């Protein structure tokens, strides 16, 4: 309406394929499926708890976008770093963070993964190399570059992976991080999850180019990479390739994955600003439904997939119960962990 761009349509397959491995072993496929199911069930439960008024703050769900977290999560080395946004449940869980800890954090309990201090938007699990969820758009991009710089200097072979949204491509930190990463040839992979919207505003109406990340790759001397964000095989293949490149010392990548969120931007948003036919088209491309279909076609048995479903549901049930059993944090925690000595002593 006011903008120069157009809302990006569902991508033509021809434009976004090419990274899916020709062959993928059974275990990897089942693991991709399992990861997506786990993330889906967890977030559906989080949404239920929100409706029960148990989630007190905001929360941003990745329902519909699970393939990205699953594909990259599967491809990463255990000690690769993840940096993500306030929409970070999936990216944190997929690295191995405790479902109970994450759920309890959403409920503001003392057994939350951040002791209740951070909440939904700041999930972090350093023991799993999930180095934080950042709630200011774009800020984590240079931070991810810094982790990659450290990995490079320590010669650790680690890669940093940084997830962000389409709207994030218009903020200054995006530009600074990409330039630095290329100039220093850092082992960092930037992954734009283009779900076509910022909060309520379509990305096309405020962006100078149709593909907000891919169309800017050349400004950093990078390859243009646009992938189907709802296809875990494609994402796994793409992630594997660029993680390997980065690990080999060949520098960063910028990947744009086209996807869509099933619901609104955050907890209270019904997402009514999205045209019905657009929503319909994308709902027909649910990454889990499609992948389940593909697996069945490939000869996987429905029972083994069902078993995964029920196993993950049980895990979510357990986490829910444990989270609910958690206590409210002690107010003594308020003045802890400001400084490395564990306290808050700004004066003597």
């Amino acid at each position, binding site marked *: *309406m*006011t903008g120069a761009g157009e809302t990006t349509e569902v991508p033509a397959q021809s434009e976004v394929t090419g990274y899916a491995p020709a062959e993928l072993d059974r275990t990897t496929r089942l693991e991709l499926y399992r990861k997506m199911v786990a993330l889906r069930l967890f977030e559906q439960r989080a949404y239920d708890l929100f409706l029960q008024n148990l989630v*007190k*703050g*905001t929360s941003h769900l990745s329902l519909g976008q699970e393939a990205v977290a699953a594909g990259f999560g599967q491809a990463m080395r255990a000690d690769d770093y993840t940096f993500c946004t306030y929409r970070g449940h999936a990216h944190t869980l997929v690295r191995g963070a405790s479902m109970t800890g994450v759920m309890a954090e959403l409920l*503001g*309990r003392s057994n*939350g993964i*951040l002791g*209740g*201090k*951070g*909440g*939904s*938007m*700041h999930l972090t699990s350093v023991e799993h190399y999930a180095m934080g969820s*950042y*709630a*200011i*758009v*774009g*800020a984590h991009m240079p931070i991810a570059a810094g982790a990659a710089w450290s990995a490079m200097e320590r010669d650790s072979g680690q890669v940093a992976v940084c997830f962000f949204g389409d*709207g*994030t491509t*218009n*903020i*200054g*930190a995006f530009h600074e991080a990409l330039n630095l990463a290329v100039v220093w040839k850092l082992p960092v992979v930037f992954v734009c999850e283009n779900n076509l919207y*910022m*909060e*309520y*505003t379509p990305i096309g*109406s*405020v*962006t100078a180019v149709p593909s907000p990340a891919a169309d800017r790759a050349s400004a950093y001397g990078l390859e243009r990479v646009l992938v189907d964000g709802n296809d875990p095989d494609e994402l796994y293949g793409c992630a594997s390739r660029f993680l390997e490149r980065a690990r080999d010392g060949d520098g960063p990548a910028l990947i744009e994955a086209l996807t869509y969120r099933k619901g609104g931007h955050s907890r209270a948003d019904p997402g009514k*600003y999205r045209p019905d036919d657009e929503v319909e088209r994308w709902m027909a491309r649910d990454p889990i439904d499609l992948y389940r279909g593909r697996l069945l076609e490939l000869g996987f048995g429905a029972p083994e997939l069902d078993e995964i479903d029920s196993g993950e549901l049980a895990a979510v049930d357990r986490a829910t119960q444990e989270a609910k059993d958690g206590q*409210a*944090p002690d*107010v003594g*925690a*308020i*003045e802890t962990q*400001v400084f490395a000595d564990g306290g*808050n002593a*700004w004066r003597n």
Partner: protein
Amino acid sequence: MAELSYRDAVAAGLAQEMERDDTVYMIGEDIAAAGGVFKATPGLLERFGPRRVRDTPISEEAITGAAMGAAMTGLRPVAELMFSDFIATCWDIIANQIAKTRYMTDGQITLPLVIRTANGAGSRFGAQHSQSLENWAMAVPGLKVVAPSTPADVKGLLAASIRDDDPVMFFEHKSLYATKGDVPDGEHVEELGVAKVRREGSDATIVALAAMVPRALDAAERLAADGIDCTVIDVRSLVPLDTQTILGSVRSTSRLYTVEENPRLCGWGAEIASIVAEELFYDLDGPIVRITTPHVPLPAADALEDATLPTVERIYQTIKNSD
């Protein structure tokens, strides 16, 4: 008089000024088609059209920079920064450019612009979406700083800010958006730089701002029941600061308490305390006490957040137990 919510008073103030002056333009993220993420600007797009009410990319430097460039060339832009925490992402434009340019050009450039932003805690949003940052703005010469506590003041002070020829940082408090109050009918404009005495008492002066005002008033009622009768002053505007109202009150009560939502260090309460400790030293009967959020980033969990901000109970106890 009509009863309006604090949120609706924002839209009412904007509509009043946009109707009156067609150089007033609004820009910000999700403010137009969506009516703002706090629903403080609904209906304005429909009423004033897509040129005067415009959605922006997520580019806070571009938003505030554009407002500045437009203000120096004939518009009166009102830019929204969705959360006050995000002023950090464009702090250079605000603190180094907007605040200093009139001075550096010896008055050649005038910047009639307003930056509206949702400030403060209480929504369990955690440390990056809950700060009270009015003192960041107050510390920068060249900015005016306003933080209303009632719907009437939202409308009247927003109108005054838009009409002011200087850049104004207008801090709306997130946890007050749903509160209601009477707003005068017809055109309503207040004056910047005038504090409001919300309650008169002779035993002590409590100075508060924004969401701390109702808390200070509640505490004052409890103290009154204990025989301690307090004046409560709503500062409303930190720059210009109505020191005379504060000094006048302290001169008569001889005690000063400030209630600040910001973390302890270098808050506006410290500035007021230092003014009083210099100018009314011999009138004071006892220590100046600042009641603030402790010097911590804010926690997210409801149980923690509630206990971090100054509560009515803490205000009450602090004043009751002061020596």
